[in-house]
């Protein structure tokens, strides 16, 4: 003799909490609510024009002083899309050699001024071949002996 009990079924839905993460026990990670998973990207700031920016390493200490404090061995981003303005630190080709100096305008003439007071400013005249190659936008120095220090090689030329 079997007795069948017919039970009432609840006719309204039961809401369940859905968890995105596997839950060993407990609650979903509160960090998952923050949908923004992007990291801060340094190269976006340093390289707004990657196709016309060149990285260069500085040799020498002619700019090692206020306000730029570019030390020997520092890494620079040189942007060629920008128009050089007085006050910019620029890379210039003077008589077939590159140099890093601050471009300044004094009494109608342009000067290439070293930030290290031990060096002399240089007046740009028509006679020498001088060409402003690009504008230095950022300088990266390394305060530990890390990867930037390993990349100086002896020239074979």
């Amino acid at each position, binding site marked *: 003799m079997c007795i069948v009990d017919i039970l009432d079924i609840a006719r309204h839905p039961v809401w369940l909490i859905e968890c995105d993460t596997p839950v060993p026990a407990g609650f979903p990670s509160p960090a998952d609510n923050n949908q923004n998973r992007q990291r801060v990207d340094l190269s976006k700031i340093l390289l707004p024009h990657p196709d016309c920016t060149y990285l260069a390493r500085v040799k020498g200490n002619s700019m090692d002083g206020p306000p730029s404090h570019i030390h020997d061995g520092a*890494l620079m981003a040189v942007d060629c899309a920008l128009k050089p303005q007085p006050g910019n630190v620029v890379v210039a080709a003077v008589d077939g050699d*590159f140099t890093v100096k601050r471009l300044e305008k004094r009494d109608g003439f342009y000067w290439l001024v070293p930030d290290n007071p031990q060096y002399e400013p240089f007046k740009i005249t028509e006679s020498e*071949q001088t060409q402003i190659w690009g504008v230095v936008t950022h300088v990266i120095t390394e305060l530990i002996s890390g990867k930037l220090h390993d990349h100086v*090689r002896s020239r074979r030329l």
Partner: protein
Amino acid sequence: MFALVDCNNFYVSCERVFQPRLANVPVVVLSNNDGCVVSRSAEAKALGIRMGVPLFQVRPLIEQHKVQVFSSNYALYGDMSYRVMSYLASVVPEVEIYSIDEAFLGLHGMERYLIQPESFAQKVRKQVMRRTHIPTCVGIAPTKTLAKLANYLAKKTVAFNGVVVLDSVERQWWALRQVPVEEVWGVGRQYGQKLRAMGLNTAADLAGCSEAWARKHMGGVVGARLVRELQGKPCHQLHPSEDGTLARKSIACTRSFGRPLSKFDDLLGAVAAFTSRAAEKLRAQDSTAYIITVFIGQNRFGPTPPPYTHSAQITLPAATNSTPDLVRAARALLVRLWQPGLVYKKAGVILDGLEGHGQPQLSLFEQLPEVQRPQSAALMRKLDQLNSRFGPNCVRVATAAVAGPKGTPAPWLGQKRLCSPERTTSWHELWEIG
């Protein structure tokens, strides 16, 4: 309207970017293995150094005039080319990268904006110069062939200031009269001689021919199109590439050896290495190939009589892009070509019959390669991933003699004694100032 932008003496210009001391002095760049001159500055051209001349033939000239000589630094040239092309792609809706140093720009729909094409072209030249320090010339015309011709004139004549625009019929005919017939894009040396023998000396003479004549004497429809293009009726469209790389119709990897080789194993090492490289290029553009050609060459300037090169070709049963398959075929071809006792200076592998991946020509008697070896494509994908992550040739077929990250340099590898640093692509050789 089309514009053709072309970098002047591209390899030399790249060397000058980071070496201002090279301005206004004669400079040449050599091919692989420092064999022949492949790029010359204007000053070097003026000394009479011809394109493609072997270095040893012009050594006295070079020493006498203190010509600056460089090995080819392809890492640098590739990066500078990419920088130029990226800028060009940002100024017009469509760009076709035609080679490492030239690109066609599609100016369609820009006519209202370009009231003066001349000043647009000068702006492009100025910007490329400022951003990359590479000098360029621009030719603008209603067809690609005429744009090429305009560019030729812009390069030849200093007075045009690097820009020639052929926007009227009168100017087009004037330009056609200035250009020798063999300089027309697509004519070449062989047809040039043939045309001159028929009394057609300039591009204008060729443009004056009828279409029927061109069809008969200049290789059918190709010749007819060439003549129509010269007459200002466009037949060739722009072929812009989706990802900025040009899908090629054939892929080659050829090198002269650093030293002469005669042992079969040494040649096989070289040929297998070149095949692997060609297969990599093939996969990079997602194509497959079913025709493979191998050639080996002796020293042109040595004691042996011609022929200097021997080549053999094989048609594969089905198109493939798998390195082991292609190396196996190349090896079979080399066995046919190699003769004991001869000294070889050069070898090359050419892949033809390219098909887009996933559109294969089926074979009647063979199953598809991917059916026969379902793992092959996955293996090749992994191989390319490993090599892009850990450096070129990190994983390779064992027969390929290449300079891997570890191990001795391959016997065929050339000396690049005069190579400038890879200033933009390598941390170790980064540009230094001061």
